[in-house]
């Protein structure tokens, strides 16, 4: 009590008179600065502390220097350090009553003026006294809030500065640890050097330790704080990202993401409870997934290494679980899907792994009947989410954010990978009905069938849910883009069964019909935009596709009519621009003879009826439209409202890039004369398709010949495949020979200075060249030969395509057989599975491989006693 009386005696004064506050404060400040006895100094500081709220300006101006000197001088004594820190904190904190309002900031600046003050504050942290540490951290936090840069700079140059703060993370008193965490978050914000030092001082390990101890994403707000600090350290900091990977931190993430109840921590007799999502857990999970994505930003230098590390630590399992489990909150689901997308994007190994993941869907109504648990490729479930098809049973519609994320994953899965592209496209055709597996997969859906269903929905669905078509169109558009074989496969898809007397209608015609319908019925513009972007990607650089489009003559008339309209299609310049684009592509790639309009027929229509300038204007108006200007790379919807209104999504980035880089060429082609369009193009079509086929056959070859499977069925198939390959190869050679022959035929007369054969073709009969009749007969002869050869080539090409499709089917069947045999208990070496992995003695690796790629997701939230269905090692599409 002594110091109380001493303190107040100053206030009262010698003669019992009250003194003015200014005088009192001055006296106290003097005493704090000059008193020789510690007790006196402490009494003075305590009094100042008492006054520091009410007379902030006075205390600050009179005593700040004295307090700071004392802090350094008496830093060993918690008894005085604590009130000093509290007083300083009162002075530096902003208070709404402050006069002037900047008072707190002013005093903060004064504290920071001298580097020694910061050093003293950090030195104080060595003391373990709770209040000392707590107040010191708080004071630093206050200083940092008002003057981030000076304090960051001051701490940076103190060799032990950051280390002292990092040590606080190990404090067993949660309050101090948490305060330190908050301080470090602010401190490391936007400061590369501090971020590196914090990482160097072992931040990653310590943070992951804390998170693990708190139960991963199931933990509280402290976990979120840890993730935030990790965010700060990793974002924009490549060096730290490398460090994170090199210190094996990525390996620690899957556990944190897991929602499965940790068996080690639960009592043996306790009923196993499934995890229930809290708001905090959802925030933690979404945030942690966001952090994972920081490591694998598409296009970054170290993305590949991080993707590989993520695969090796088996992060697929928890991510797939989060993506597909029905009780996962939407925000988390979307982030998990995006994360998966970034993990597989442009990484062939990971795309492969993803292709081989199968999941077992436990239907809602599956009570005891566990015999029908059919594993399906995970991509099927992802496509299902994307197109929003799972609305049976009155389930809520999937939010757009989740569907966009699922679409992004689909696009990432096929990004830069013709193999996965082809694998998905091949599912567009339903399996042959005589396939014994169709009993097993009879009702099962394939990715392709889901896409087609979504593209061609009933009337009400299209009107009600335009995005049903849109997402499916974006995915299919990417599936066909730049892949001639895929386009050929898609051309073969048709509906209607001839046996029942129905005329088969091709997918292309169905889509065009849907487009015409959407425009005529004035459905939401996204339906038309989706279908048009798909058709544009399909017809681009593909004369056979253009030919199929033109088979129905009304199609092109529809285009011409709509493009001519002065008011835009349904007053929408974007749709009209896309229609004009489609027309342009048709003009440019109309190389194949077909029943419809030829390029020569089209030219006058474009030039005279519509006008080249009009078409160009239509194109440019679309290009300059807002919808086209800000496409979304990640397809992230702007609004997060689940159903209330449609998100502002019109174009995907891929399509916009595709148009931007080609539009000039297309526009040029418009004014090129019909005969020269094909020549003006670089010799793409033929050159492009053949190598890709060659590549495929050779890789198939390697795969087929590598296996030495013991199964007779598989052996037979292999033989069949090999035979087919042989055929394909001989035909390839034949085609090549024919092509060269044809070329030499074209070149020979041209060299002889005869008029251009192509020109002649166009103006038949009007032979104006002053050459001898012998020449003209020769030319006619050659022309005929050329026609014949062309026909032959086309026939061969068709045959080859058919064989290729057959090959794909055989391969699929082979795999299904193998899987089935294995289910039946047949022992098949696993190396047989990997088509490319022919070396023996790798069985162990493959075992592990199988484990990493197969998982079961119970699509029922609370499946209490569902017996774990038997896991078969591997299932292929």
């Amino acid at each position, binding site marked *: 009590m002594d110091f109380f009386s001493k303190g107040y005696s100053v206030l009262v004064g010698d003669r019992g008179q009250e003194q003015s506050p200014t005088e009192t404060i001055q006296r106290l400040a003097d005493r704090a600065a000059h008193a020789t006895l510690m007790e006196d100094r402490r009494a003075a500081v305590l009094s100042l502390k008492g006054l520091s709220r009410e007379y902030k300006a006075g205390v600050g101006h009179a005593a700040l220097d004295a307090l700071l000197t004392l802090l350094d001088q008496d830093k060993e004594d918690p008894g005085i350090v604590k009130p000093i820190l509290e007083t300083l904190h009162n002075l530096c904190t902003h208070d709404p009553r402050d006069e002037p309002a900047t008072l707190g900031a002013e005093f903060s600046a004064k504290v920071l003026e001298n580097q020694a003050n910061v050093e003293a504050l950090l030195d104080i942290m060595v003391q373990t006294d709770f209040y000392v540490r707590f107040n010191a951290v708080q004071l630093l936090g206050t200083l940092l809030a008002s003057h981030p840069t000076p304090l960051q700079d001051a701490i940076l140059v103190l060799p032990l500065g950051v280390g002292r703060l990092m040590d606080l993370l190990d404090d067993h008193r949660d309050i101090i640890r948490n305060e330190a965490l908050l301080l470090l978050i602010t401190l490391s914000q936007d400061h590369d050097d501090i971020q590196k030092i914090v990482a160097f001082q072992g931040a990653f390990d310590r943070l992951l330790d804390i998170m693990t101890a708190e139960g991963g994403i199931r933990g509280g707000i402290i976990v979120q704080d840890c993730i935030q600090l990790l965010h700060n350290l990793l974002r924009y900091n490549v060096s730290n990202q*490398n460090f994170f990977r090199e210190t094996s931190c990525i390996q620690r993430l899957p556990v944190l993401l897991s929602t499965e109840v940790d068996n080690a921590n639960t009592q043996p007799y306790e009923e196993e409870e499934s995890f229930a999502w809290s708001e905090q857990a959802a925030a933690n999970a979404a945030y942690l997934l966001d952090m994972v994505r920081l490591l694998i930003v598409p296009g970054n230098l170290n993305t590949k290494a991080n993707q590989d590390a993520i695969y090796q630590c088996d992060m697929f399992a928890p991510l797939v679980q989060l993506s597909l489990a029905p009780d996962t909150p939407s925000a988390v689901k979307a982030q998990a899907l995006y994360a998966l997308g970034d993990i597989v994007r442009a990484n062939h190994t990971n795309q*492969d792994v993803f292709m081989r993941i199968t999941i077992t869907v436990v239907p809602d109504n599956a009570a005891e009947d566990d015999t029908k648990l059919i594993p399906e490729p995970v991509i099927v479930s992802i496509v299902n989410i994307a197109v929003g098809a799972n609305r049976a049973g009155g389930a809520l519609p999937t939010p757009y954010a989740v569907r966009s994320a699922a679409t992004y994953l689909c696009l990432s899965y096929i990004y830069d990978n013709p193999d996965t592209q082809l694998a998905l496209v091949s599912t567009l055709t339903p399996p042959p009905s005589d396939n014994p597996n169709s009993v097993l997969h009879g009702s099962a859906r394939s990715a392709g069938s889901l896409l087609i269903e979504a593209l061609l929905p009933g009337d009400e669905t299209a009107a009600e849910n335009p995005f049903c078509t849109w997402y499916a169109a974006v995915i299919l558009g990417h599936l066909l883009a730049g892949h001639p074989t895929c386009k050929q496969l898609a051309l073969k898809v048709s509906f209607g069964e001839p046996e029942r007397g129905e005329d088969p209608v091709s997918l292309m015609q169905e889509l065009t019909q849907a487009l015409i319908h959407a425009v005529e019925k004035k459905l939401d513009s996204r339906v038309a935009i989706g279908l048009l972007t798909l058709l544009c990607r399909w017809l681009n650089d593909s004369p056979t596709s253009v030919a199929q489009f033109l088979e129905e003559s009304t199609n092109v008339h529809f285009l011409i009519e709509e493009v001519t309209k002065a008011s835009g299609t349904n007053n929408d310049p974007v749709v009209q621009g896309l229609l004009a684009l489609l027309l342009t592509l048709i003009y440019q790639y109309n190389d194949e003879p077909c029943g419809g309009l030829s390029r020569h027929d089209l030219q006058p229509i474009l030039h005279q009826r519509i006008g080249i300038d009009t078409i160009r204007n239509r194109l440019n108006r679309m290009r300059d439209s807002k919808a086209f200007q800000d496409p979304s790379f990640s397809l992230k919807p702007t609004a997060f409202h689940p159903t209330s209104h449609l998100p502002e999504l019109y174009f995907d980035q891929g399509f916009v890039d595709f148009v931007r880089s080609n539009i000039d060429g297309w526009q040029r082609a418009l004014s090129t004369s019909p005969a020269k369009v094909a020549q003006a193009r670089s010799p793409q079509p033929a050159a492009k398709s053949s190598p890709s086929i060659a590549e495929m056959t050779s890789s198939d070859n390697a795969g087929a010949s590598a296996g030495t499977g013991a199964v007779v069925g598989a052996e037979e198939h292999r033989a069949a495949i090999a035979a087919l390959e042989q055929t394909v190869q001989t035909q390839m050679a034949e085609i090549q020979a024919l092509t060269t022959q044809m070329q030499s035929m074209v070149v020979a007369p041209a060299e002889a200075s005869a008029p251009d054969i192509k020109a002649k073709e166009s103006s038949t009969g009007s032979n104006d060249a002053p050459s001898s009749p012998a020449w003209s007969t020769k030319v006619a002869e050659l022309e005929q030969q050329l026609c014949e050869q062309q026909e032959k080539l086309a026939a061969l090409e068709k045959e080859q395509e058919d064989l290729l499709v057959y090959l794909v089917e055989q391969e699929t069947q082979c795999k299904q057989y193998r899987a089935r045999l294995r289910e039946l208990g047949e022992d098949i070496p696993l190396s047989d599975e990997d088509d*490319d992995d022919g070396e023996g003695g790798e069985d162990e690796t493959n075992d*592990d491989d199988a484990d990493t790629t197969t998982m079961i997701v119970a699509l029922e939230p609370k499946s209490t006693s569902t017996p774990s269905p038997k896991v078969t090692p591997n299932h292929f599409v």
Partner: protein
Amino acid sequence: MASYAYLFKYIIIGDTGVGKSCLLLQFTDNRFQPTHDLTIGVEFGARIVTVGNKRIKLQIWDTAGQESFRSITRSYYRGAAGALLVYDITRRDTFDHLATWLEDARKYSNPNITIMLIGNKCDLAAKREVSREEGEAFAQENGLFFIETSAKTAANVEEAFVNTAQDIYDKIQTGVLDVTNESCGVKTGPTQSGLASLPSAATESNRGCC
């Protein structure tokens, strides 16, 4: 992402332009970059070496030699088990500055830190300004290891890093360094043993079309 028994933290210090970043690049990537890109702040590199039949992961922090970064790089002394103190044998001034670097290292680092003195650019014998003996003498006086290297020809680069690791490893064996104290700059490797058996991503390069 192979496993390892221990993890050692290194720092590389010394005047600007003596070849610190080049030594690191040669050690981690086996390549040499003739142009001098100033290191800004601190850069990070890592590699696994084998010492005494144990796999040891080296985490190496390459610091900026410029005076203006000096205060920042001091933060990295604490928590380093090894320091590579580099000078340029063709520039006498870089040798003369060793004393101040050493003073910093002694002041801010763990007392048991292993310091390797490196005379770099030994391929440029014609331009030599600091003799090998001088380097050796300085090392002896101050209780440092000594080696002459060339980041360009890779001569002795491996040895510089590995010999340092050997000494740190010996200190652990003899109990001088405590692996549980993180400020010593050494740590035991991750304990998850299952990792080693994971398939390597390289085995699958291409596959069939379905």
